[in-house]
């Protein structure tokens, strides 16, 4: 079966999740990846949405983080202050998923503003849960489609902290969590270099060249010495993901 780059991105992200993970899930690609994992190789995975729903098992993807479907299928639903105090800050989340409008080579993210903060060129939605998701989850997976306006040399604003200016910066801030360990894009998968914490490409999706990846990135990209090819989506992965999207479209009456 052929597949789209977005499907490859979602499937590559889903493969990183295990039965034992407790995921703080954002809307969009992360939600699709987490639920795909739950419906395939990780049926015991625990999904938490910041609206307060614990251990939720939606049969369709939510359009927002507070859809009724999430609550209906949750073990229980807690107030939002409790979610941020007992559950996120409580250190109980193993994986946080983040996306962003912009990312730099150390996996810092911007979702706040392009241009000057006080006189913005483009005002983005803001951080929401991201600043504390980035610091309080055991590790962070980032999913973003590549493009030179998204993968940039310098961020105008750091909304959530990745690896700062390089290895050791998290420790200097007193952070004991790992921060971003994988960036899953529509073209490749990146990971911070063990020595420098700079993102390097560790696998290319099937059919994607180094040049294509570099073209979608605003800084000179590094490639890991043992660069591999991301395994193509299996028939089961594609089937389950497409089924999920089809159910979602039917439920919402929209493309999602």
């Amino acid at each position, binding site marked *: 079966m052929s597949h789209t780059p977005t499907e490859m991105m979602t499937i590559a992200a889903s493969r990183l999740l295990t039965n034992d993970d407790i995921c703080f899930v954002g809307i969009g690609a992360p939600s699709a990846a987490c639920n795909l994992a739950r419906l395939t190789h990780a049926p015991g995975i625990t999904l938490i949405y910041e609206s307060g729903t614990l251990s939720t098992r939606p049969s369709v993807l939510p359009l927002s983080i507070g859809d*009724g479907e999430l609550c209906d299928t949750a073990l229980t639903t807690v107030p939002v202050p409790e979610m941020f105090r007992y559950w996120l800050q409580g250190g109980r989340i193993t994986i946080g998923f983040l996306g962003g409008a912009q990312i730099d080579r150390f996996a810092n993210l911007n979702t706040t503003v392009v241009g000057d903060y006080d006189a913005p060129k483009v005002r983005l939605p803001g951080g929401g849960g991201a*600043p504390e998701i980035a610091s309080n989850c055991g590790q962070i997976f980032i999913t973003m489609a590549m493009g030179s306006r998204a993968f940039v040399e310098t961020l105008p604003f750091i909304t959530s902290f990745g690896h700062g200016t390089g290895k050791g910066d998290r420790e200097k801030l007193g952070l004991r969590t790992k921060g971003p360990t994988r960036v899953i894009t529509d073209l490749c998968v990146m990971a911070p270099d063990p020595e420098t914490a700079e993102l390097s490409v560790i696998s290319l999706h099937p059919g994607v060249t180094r040049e294509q990846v570099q073209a979608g990135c605003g800084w000179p990209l590094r490639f890991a010495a043992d660069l591999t090819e991301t395994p193509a989506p299996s028939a089961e992965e594609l089937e389950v993901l497409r089924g999920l999207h089809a159910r979602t479209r039917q439920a919402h009456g929209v493309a999602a």
Partner: protein
Amino acid sequence: MAKFVSLQEGIEEVLRDGDQVSMEGFTHLIPHAAGHEAIRQGRKRLTLIRMTPDLIYDQMIGTGCAEKLIFSWGGNPGVGSLHRLRDAIENGWPHRLEIEEHSHAAMANAYEAGAANLPFAVFRGYKGVDLPKVNPNIRSVTCPYTGEVLATVPALRPDAAVIHALRADREGNVLLEGIVGVQKEAVLAAKRSLVTVEEIVEDFGPRNANAVILPSWTVTAIAHVPGGAYPSYAHGYYKRANEFYIGWDKIARERDSFLSWIKANVLEKGPDAFAQYARPRRQAAE
């Protein structure tokens, strides 16, 4: 004790020009009908507080109700930008909008501190990020035991809280269920509160001993506004109108189409415009 009022009376009494107001609801139970009534009554110079200023605040900002916004995520969930919010920040239309920006964790903690009558909240956050550089209200305290430096935010203590809830009983107690967000905290933190409800019942009947209930004496006024959360949803009554959220993107993108929509759907309508979206309990949602 809460008194039962019409939506018009409730907004007149509870929400005043110049107020700091929280109209909360975390995707679920967003008080849209109350927001429309505030627009109809021409409220001015409001400081709008909301973790996720979505369509309701896009509408209030676009119609000039607000002079300031305190928030943590300003977008159309799952869809994209809030164009009226962006137009106000980027271009000062219809006039300049001051912003005070936080993270969700900070806002949630600030509501919690407000409900607890504390002047500030302590949490572990804002590490390594730029928001503290542009928001002087983000400060810190040092733990007197470990020496750790933790972030602080001022407690939120709005003049008015406006929320939508599922049911009130005849005594004016208010019940929430499902995704309860920060609404209880917003009401307990506020000086005055208005709750619009889907349904008024004689009493709540058998229920979980720990049900989320605001006692009558913590609420200023209650208005019966079935369907009042549309296009948000009321758990067990009606579902979220996702198509409206998607359609809003087009309506709000241009000033003209926005103003036309407001005229036809807010200014020329009344509170009962929401009744068409109401559904009997437990049928629509199952």
